[in-house]
């Protein structure tokens, strides 16, 4: 059977399980790959501890320093907008909050749908802006790989299908919802094997950075 409902149930059932398994296996493998490499002992007399500066950098690096902000305002602002938009839609949309509650048993208040709707629209626009920037800025042109465009496409489609499903712009609805779930699953599957890993590893990277600089007495 290949009706719309079967498709939706497939994405909510077996496909979700598969995606989550690949995601969990891939992510933990990646994390193990990182941590097991370890660091060499550092014999230089430290100026300060590592933990606190490391943790501080985990947070402070979220905000660009004023000079960088000035030099790369578009890049920084657009990046910010879509990351925040994505996070709001991901975590504060009622169906998503219910999903997380259903899966992990942790719940938090969600935002009214029209707010999430607006945020999603802004996110979509910001995502398009990042693509334009990637295609036109000489540095980004030079360093971008197929992976960058693949990841962009998947992220964009996740948001777009979500938007279409919410507005019921694709019929029948189970197809719309199923597409959205499927895109999210594809995102989960590629996450551990692409730069999307940064969702998790950026905190590790920032910690190492903050620790290394903090040890030398600089808050990075």
């Amino acid at each position, binding site marked *: *059977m290949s009706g719309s409902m079967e498709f939706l149930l497939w994405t909510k059932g077996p496909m*979700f399980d598969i995606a989550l398994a690949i995601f*969990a296996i891939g992510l933990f*493998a990646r994390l*193990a790959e990182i941590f097991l490499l370890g660091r060499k002992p550092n014999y230089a007399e430290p100026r300060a501890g590592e933990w606190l500066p490391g943790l501080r950098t985990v947070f402070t690096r979220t905000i660009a320093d004023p000079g960088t902000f000035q030099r790369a305002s578009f890049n920084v602002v657009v990046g910010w907008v879509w990351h925040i938009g994505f996070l709001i839609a991901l975590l504060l949309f009622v*169906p998503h909050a219910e999903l997380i509650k259903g*899966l992990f*048993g942790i719940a938090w208040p969600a935002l009214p*749908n029209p707010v*999430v709707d607006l945020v999603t629209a802004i996110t979509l626009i910001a995502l398009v802006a990042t693509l334009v920037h990637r295609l036109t800025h000489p540095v980004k042109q030079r360093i971008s790989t197929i992976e960058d465009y693949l990841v962009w496409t998947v992220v964009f489609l996740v948001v777009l299908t979500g938007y279409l499903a919410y507005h019921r712009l694709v019929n029948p609805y189970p197809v719309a919802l199923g597409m959205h779930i499927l895109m999210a699953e594809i995102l989960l599957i590629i996450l551990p094997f692409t730069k999307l890993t940064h969702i998790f590893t950026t905190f590790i990277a920032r910690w190492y950075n903050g620790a290394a600089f903090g040890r030398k007495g600089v808050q990075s």
Partner: protein
Amino acid sequence: MPVRKTPDKTLGESLRDHGLSRRGFLKFCAATASMMALPPSMVPVIAAALDAARRPSVIWLSFQECTGCTESLTRSHAPTLEDLILNIISLDYHHTLQAAAGEAAEEARLQAMEDNKGEYLVIVDGSIPGPDSNPGFSTVAGQSNYDILMETVEHAAAVIAVGTCAAFGGLPQANPNPTGARSVMDLVKDKPVINVSGCPPIPMVITGVLTHYLTFGRLPELDAYHRPLAFFGQSIHDRCYRRPFYDRGLFAESFDDEGAKLGWCLYRLGCKGPSTYNACATMKWNDGTSWPIESGHPCLGCSEPSFWDAGGFYEPLSVPITATSGAILAAGALGAVVGGAATVLAKKETKTIVAHRQPVTVEELEDKL
């Protein structure tokens, strides 16, 4: 009991014979038109068509079912069951409603088939153990459901699968489907099949489909699941009177909280309305009295395939069906082991490399100058 032949009277004659006034008849036509979302200008057309129509012979087959669909049918109010049986169709075989029993009943079915070859309608409720299943799972007069179905539909004009069991397999087909239950659509490939799904289906939808057939002499327009678009064209969610609350993000979070009392949206309580196509929200139940969501209960999605296996009735639509946090953790642990092993191997390799790392000497550097 003598076998009743399909009467030669037209539907109009029959109705008049039963004392239905012209006004009453037109009222019935108007109700039918509105039910099928036809413009009022169609009322005279319907009236004329019904007036001249011959009552079709209908054979109703019940397989693995709970009689809920028949129960539902008996609560049809426009047209009423009496109207339907006595006037509109000639119900020649129906376990629950016919007077005949035993061999006489089966005889009636065969006779009706014989007399109305190629013209009779077959209505099925309940799912059927497939051809590969043990035929003994469900039999009538010692004959397997599958055989009866295939024998009966062979010369039928069309088949109407009433209820989700007949339309999509329903409860009998739910995991693990011990009887190998199949839907009519799965088994009958060479006849038009109309699905009137729902557990049970809305009675007026059953009668509405029959009326449509009589009026226009053909089957109504169907969706991808062979359901008449007139009744299944819109989702519950799209016509739900609680929708404004959904749009504003106001949700009941338990069955007795403030939101529930204020009639807010039932999404978080598991409402499957967004993905369910049925007419409950517009036609309501019990003579238009109310419908499940109006009475404060989320839609279960009963008119959709596999609704028994589509996750908990009280789990929101967005919650995955089978995944659990335990399973995720297990997968994660496996990943850690795999990744860990790979890294340990890589590291071991690196250690040997480092151990054999050749120190750079000044001579080597000088060589480069």
